[in-house]
C-alpha cells in the first residue's frame, strides 16, 4: 500500500514536469541528473563523514542543480545542440564521481546501490513521526514535492507554456525564456533527487519520460497532456506493483515495464496519432481516390 502510494506520488511529481521536458525536447534531463548526482554524494560523504539521507540528498541536489544549469549554459552558447550538451555534462560529472569514489571512498562501500539508487521495496520501513502520527518518510517527502511542483506549474503555467512553444514571442511579452527554463530544470533536479532516494533512479527517469511521451501521442493540449501523464503514472504504479508481487520481480522494474506497455498501446491505438488509426485513414483515402477515379463523373 505504502509502496503504491509512494510510487503514485513520484509519478505525480514527475508527470507534472515531464510533459514540459518532452515538448522542449530535453526528455533525457532526468537521466542526466541521475548520473550527475554521484560527485555530490561523494562530496557530502567526504565533508560530513556520514551517509545520512538528508546530507546525501542535499549533496546530490547541489550537483543536480549544477548539472542542469551547466547544460543550459552550454546550450545557450549556441555552439552545442541541446542533446549534445546533456551528453557532455552528465558523463563528465559522473566521471568525477567515479574518480572520487576510487580515490577516497573505495573501502567504505559508498556505491550507487546503497546511496542514491534507493529501493522502493524498503519504503514502508522508513518512518517519521509527525504530531503523533507515524508516517512513511518517502510518502511525506514526495507529498511535499508534489505540492511544490503543483504550485510551480499552476503559478507559472502561462510562462512555462509560452516559453516551451514560442520563446521569441515570450521575449516580446517580457517573459524571459532562459529564466523560466532554469526554474523548470531546477525543479526537475530537486524532484529527481528526492525521488531517487525513495524509489531508485531508473523508475524516476522512466516516470519523467514515458507517461509524458504516451500523453503526447494522445492529445494536442498541454493541460490534457499533464493530466493524462499523471493518470498513466498512477496506472503504471498500480499495475507494476501487482505484476511485481505476482512474479516476485523488481518493483521499480515492473512499474517501468508497465509504463512501457501503456506507451506501446498508445503508439498502436491512439485515436489521432496511432499506427492503427493512421493505417485506417490511409486505406480510406486510397479507396476514396480509387472510387473518384473509377466513377465517370464529369
Amino acid at each position, binding site marked *: 500500500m505504502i509502496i503504491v502510494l509512494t510510487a503514485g506520488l513520484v509519478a505525480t511529481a514527475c508527470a507534472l514536469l515531464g510533459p514540459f521536458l518532452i515538448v522542449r525536447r530535453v526528455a533525457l534531463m532526468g537521466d542526466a541528473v541521475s548520473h550527475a548526482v554521484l560527485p555530490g554524494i561523494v562530496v557530502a560523504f567526504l565533508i560530513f563523514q556520514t551517509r545520512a539521507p538528508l546530507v546525501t540528498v542535499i549533496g546530490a541536489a547541489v550537483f543536480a542543480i549544477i548539472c542542469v544549469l551547466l547544460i543550459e549554459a552550454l546550450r545557450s552558447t549556441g555552439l552545442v545542440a541541446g542533446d549534445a550538451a546533456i551528453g557532455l555534462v552528465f558523463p*563528465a560529472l559522473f566521471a568525477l564521481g567515479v574518480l572520487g569514489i576510487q580515490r577516497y571512498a573505495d573501502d567504505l562501500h559508498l556505491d550507487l546501490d546503497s546511496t542514491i539508487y534507493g529501493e522502493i521495496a524498503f519504503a514502508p520501513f522508513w518512518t517519521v513521526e509527525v504530531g503523533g502520527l507515524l508516517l512513511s518518510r518517502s510518502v511525506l517527502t514526495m507529498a511535499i514535492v508534489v505540492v511544490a511542483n503543483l504550485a510551480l506549474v499552476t503559478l507559472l503555467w502561462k510562462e512555462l507554456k509560452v516559453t516551451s512553444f514560442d520563446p521569441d514571442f515570450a521575449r516580446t511579452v517580457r517573459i524571459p525564456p532562459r529564466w523560466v527554463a532554469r526554474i523548470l530544470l531546477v525543479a526537475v533536479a530537486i524532484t529527481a533527487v528526492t525521488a531517487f532516494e525513495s524509489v531508485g533512479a531508473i523508475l524516476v527517469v522512466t516516470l519523467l519520460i514515458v507517461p509524458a511521451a504516451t500523453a503526447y501521442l494522445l492529445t494536442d493540449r498541454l493541460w490534457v497532456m499533464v493530466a493524462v501523464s499523471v493518470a498513466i503514472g498512477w496506472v503504471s504504479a498500480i499495475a507494476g506493483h501487482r505484476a511485481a508481487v505476482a512474479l516476485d520481480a*523488481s518493483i521499480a522494474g515492473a512499474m517501468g515495464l508497465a509504463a512501457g506497455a501503456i506507451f506501446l498501446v498508445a503508439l498502436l491505438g491512439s485515436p489521432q496519432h496511432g499506427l492503427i488509426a493512421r493505417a485506417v485513414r490511409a486505406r480510406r483515402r486510397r479507396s476514396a481516390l480509387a472510387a473518384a477515379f473509377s466513377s465517370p463523373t464529369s
Partner: protein
Amino acid sequence: MGPLIDLLPLSYTDSVVALGALVLGIAAGVLGTFAVLARRSLVGDALAHSALPGVALAFLITGAKDPASLLVGAGIAGLIGAVAIVGIERTSRIRPDAAIGVVLSVFFSLGVVLLTYIAAQGNAQQAGLERYLFGQAAGLLERDVNVMAALAGVAVLAVVVGLRPLRTATFDREFAATAGLPLRQVELATSALLVVAIMIGLRAVGAILMVAMLIIPAVVARQFTDRLAPMLVLAGAVGAAVGVTGAQLAASAQVPTGPVIVLTGTAAVLVAVLLAPRRGVLWRAGARRAERRRQEAAALLIDLETMLHAGPPPTESELCLACARPVRPMRRALAGLDRSGLIERDGERLRLSAQGAAAAHAAIEARAMWSAWLEHGASLGITDAREPDPRDLRGSLGDEAFGRLQRLAAGGRV
C-alpha cells in the same frame, strides 16, 4: 597489434590500454559525428542502457559470465534498441529525444527485472553482473584490443564507402527520400555502426562514459569546420588524441582509465567552445570588443574633425566635454589614435595628422552613406532582401546600387 605494442615506449599493460583507447577514440569520433549532427547524440545513452537486458539474457542462456557471450548479448540488445528508436521516430510524432528516453527507460527496467529474476535463481556466478556496464580498461587484454581494432576498422571503412548516402541522409532527408535513397536502411545502418562503437567502448570505458566519448570528438571538430569530411577526420583525430592522453594520464596517476579519458575530453570541449576561431565564446567576445573600439575611434575622429572645422584645436578635456561621451573609453580611443599616428599634439591641443584627416573624412562619408541607406534604401529597388554590412556598404550593395545611393544622398534623382 603486436609490433605496435613493441614500438610504444611504455610498459606492456600501458601500451595495450593506450592502443585500446586510441582505437576507441577513432571509432567513437567518426561514428559519433553522425549521431551528433542528426541531433541524436544521446542514442549512445539509450544503446548503452539497453545493453543491460542483453547481458542478463546472455547470462541466463549460457549460465556463465563469459565476456564474449555477454558482449554479443549486449550488442544484440543494443541493435533491438536501435531498431525500436528508429521505429518509434518514423512511425509516430514522438521526437528523437523522447524516443531515446522511452527505449532507454523501458529496456533498463527490463534489465532490472531480469537481474532480480537471475538473483532469485541463486546462481553463484551472477554477482557483479551489472558491474559489466561500468568497464575496466586496466583489464584490457591484447586480444580484446585486436577485436576492437578489427571492429573499428570495419566501421570506419563502412563510413568511408557510404559517405555519400550518409551525408545526404544526415543533412537533407527530403531530398534523400525523393532521390530514392533507402532512408530507413541508412538510419538502421548508422545505428548499427553506433552499436559497434558502443561494444568497442563497453570494455574500455564503460557504458555511461561511452556516451560522452561519442559526443566529445564531434563537438570539438564541429567548432573548427563546417564541412562533413574534414569534420570526420578531425573528430577521429580528436578522439584518438583524447583517448591516448587520457589513458596516459590515468596510468601515471594510477586511477581508473575511463573517467580520466572522459574528463580529458571534457577539457578539450571547453577549450574548443571558448577559443575556436570565429565561433568560440571568447573569440566572439574579443571580436565584439574590437568592433566597439573601432566604432569609438571613428566617432572620436568625426567629433574632432567637426570641432577643428568650427574653431581652434580643442584640448583633450574640451573634446571630451563637446562630444558628451564617457571619459574612459574616450581616453582609450584617443590613446589608440595617438599610437596609430592619426592625431598630432600641439602642446595641450589636438590636431589631425594628414592621415587622420583622411580617416576622419572616410568615417564621415561612411556614416553619411549609412544614413542614406536607412533613408533611401527601400527606393533602390534591390530585388533580393539583404542586410548590408555597415562597415562595407559598397561591398555589400555592389558598385552599381552604391552609386545610385550616392546620387540619392546628394539629392539628385536616380
